């Protein structure tokens, strides 16, 4: 197990180095001068070449690319992460200030998806092709197709009409005011959770149906175990393995989807910071935030793989 853990961690590290290289290369081949974005076309044209060189040097953009890359790695290691072009705050402050909100949304969404998806999947699998199963499957097909941010917009619209909902402006942390904080995150989390719940329901249904056909489940029935025990104690644990894996995979959806859903609800999370930075072409912020999203995604998949190996001994011996 330790060997597996080590190998998996090293592997993820290699992947992250590749990821950082790709981000760096993609963002440095940007056509156009980043200073145009910062100063505007007019300000850019008025600037003397000397000023231009000075500002580029201040921003650290005039060094050779390998130097810039190594410096970025150093920044990551020390946790400084550089500064936004436009605002005084460092990327580190930005992440610490807005990150918790997005993290809460992701965790709550994952929780909701299990809460909704798993019972529905189990009930569907117990009576396949019954009316309950048909309704559940139709709903899951529908919710997989609905874009989360649109559902969010509709929800906001409805709340606006009936309750006078206003888009939040300030970040309110969990430790400052839990109730206000919950109001901030519940909408995005519910919307994201519903879509992921649809995947979980579909996945747990098909896995449970496959497992229920196995010999050992028939044995359990033959020895007289009640149906409830057969499903919950014998079939479910094995059927859950793929569902756990899919949750890690779904987190990628949640991470990407939350960017658009945060925008729909007007929640000032990390996703909105990323969108703003991309529109403003704030390279330093973008490269760090994209790296952070990729890092979380990779890390979660490592954890999923490890828990998988822990739950299923067959995996770790390979």
């Amino acid at each position, binding site marked *: 197990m330790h060997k597996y853990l080590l190998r998996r961690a090293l592997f993820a590290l290699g992947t992250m180095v590749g990821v950082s290289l790709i981000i760096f290369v993609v963002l440095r081949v940007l056509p156009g001068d980043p200073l145009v974005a910062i100063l505007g076309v007019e300000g850019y044209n008025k600037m003397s070449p000397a000023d231009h060189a000075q500002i580029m040097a201040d921003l650290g953009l005039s060094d050779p690319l390998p130097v810039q890359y190594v410096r970025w790695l150093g920044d990551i290691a020390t946790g400084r992460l550089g500064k936004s072009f436009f605002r005084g705050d460092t990327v580190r402050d930005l992440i610490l200030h807005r990150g918790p909100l997005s993290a809460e949304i992701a965790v709550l969404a994952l929780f909701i998806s299990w809460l909704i998806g798993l019972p529905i999947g189990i009930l569907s699998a117990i009576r396949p092709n019954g009316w309950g199963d048909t309704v559940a499957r139709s709903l899951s097909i529908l919710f*997989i197709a609905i874009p989360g941010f649109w559902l969010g*917009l*509709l929800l906001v619209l409805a709340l606006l009409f009936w309750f006078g909902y206003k888009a939040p402006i300030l970040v309110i942390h969990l430790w400052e005011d839990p109730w206000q904080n919950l109001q901030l995150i519940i909408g995005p989390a519910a919307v994201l959770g519903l879509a992921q719940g649809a995947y979980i329901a579909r996945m747990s249904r098909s896995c449970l149906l496959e497992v229920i056909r196995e010999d050992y489940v028939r044995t359990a029935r033959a020895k007289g175990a009640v149906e409830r025990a057969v499903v919950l104690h014998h079939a479910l644990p094995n059927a859950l393995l*793929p569902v756990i894996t899919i949750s890690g995979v779904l987190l990628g959806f949640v991470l990407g989807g939350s960017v*658009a859903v945060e*925008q*729909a609800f007007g929640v000032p999370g990390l996703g909105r910071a990323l969108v703003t930075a991309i529109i403003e072409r704030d390279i330093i912020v973008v490269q760090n935030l994209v790296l952070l999203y990729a890092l979380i*995604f990779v890390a979660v998949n490592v954890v999923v793989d490890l828990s998988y190996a822990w739950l299923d001994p067959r995996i770790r011996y390979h």
Partner: protein
Amino acid sequence: MIDGRVRRELGRFARHNVLSVAGAVVGLLIVAVALAAPLIAPRDPLKADFRRMNKPPDAQSLFGTDQVGRDTLSRVIYAGRTSLFVAFTSVLMGTTLGSLWGMACGYLGGRFDLMSQRVMEILQSFPDLILAMAISMAIGTGLPAVIIAIAITRIPFGGRVIRSVALSVREMPFVEAGRAAGASQLRVMTLHVLPQCVAPYLVLATTHLGVAIVIEAALGFLGVGVPPPTPTWGNMLADAITGLIPHWWLVLFPGLAITVTVLAFNLLGDGIRDTLDPKLSPAVLRLVTGAGKASTTPAAAPVREPSDATA
């Protein structure tokens, strides 16, 4: 090409997959409407009419009008053109390139396969939407940038799935026979391996159409997609919420168009998968989850495409 066997297959498909036939019909209808937009749209989608601003749906404009009096129905129809064009071209480029790459990986194996797997692993380490945003930012806004950005996010999915197909096809007797007969690598790949990859490719491509439409819509909604005035379903939604109080008809109809289109393609994809190759579903399921299959490398475990995962 359409002989009795194909017709029988189609008949079997229709009988067993009412839903996916419905999906196919609706999908074709949407494509037809998008293609025939100039004939069908009641108005010019770009023409502002300041006498009719912010009108709710009525007899004159069935889906209402927006802040500058443009007809929402016409805009939804024309937006379909752009959104579908982006989705089709990006899937045609990305999924196809990924599939060919994956086929080469699976068949050739060795160091080339190993290197390619690393690259795909890295590409899959980004959430789709975030990678698409970063790439479209890097290569500039506009239609081609959006298409390329979405296409790149599609590459690893094609690569993973088709690679595993090619891996199993490689061991089949007829491929060995081809090699034994002295055919070149390229010839064996195109004549023996490629045809076996067509069915899973079709399933992938159909499913990815839906994903591509959603990514395009999200990019447009976030203001980093196809720039206005060209309407797309995504940037119409972005337009809709610029006002202090968004009008429901401006939010409802573009989103409905996205949902119906994605639903249609998903249903069609499910049906094609169930019909073309019944054995494919468990194989893909195992591939996606890593269940019951010892992956050669730890990296081969999760492919993040749950829509392919469910049988």
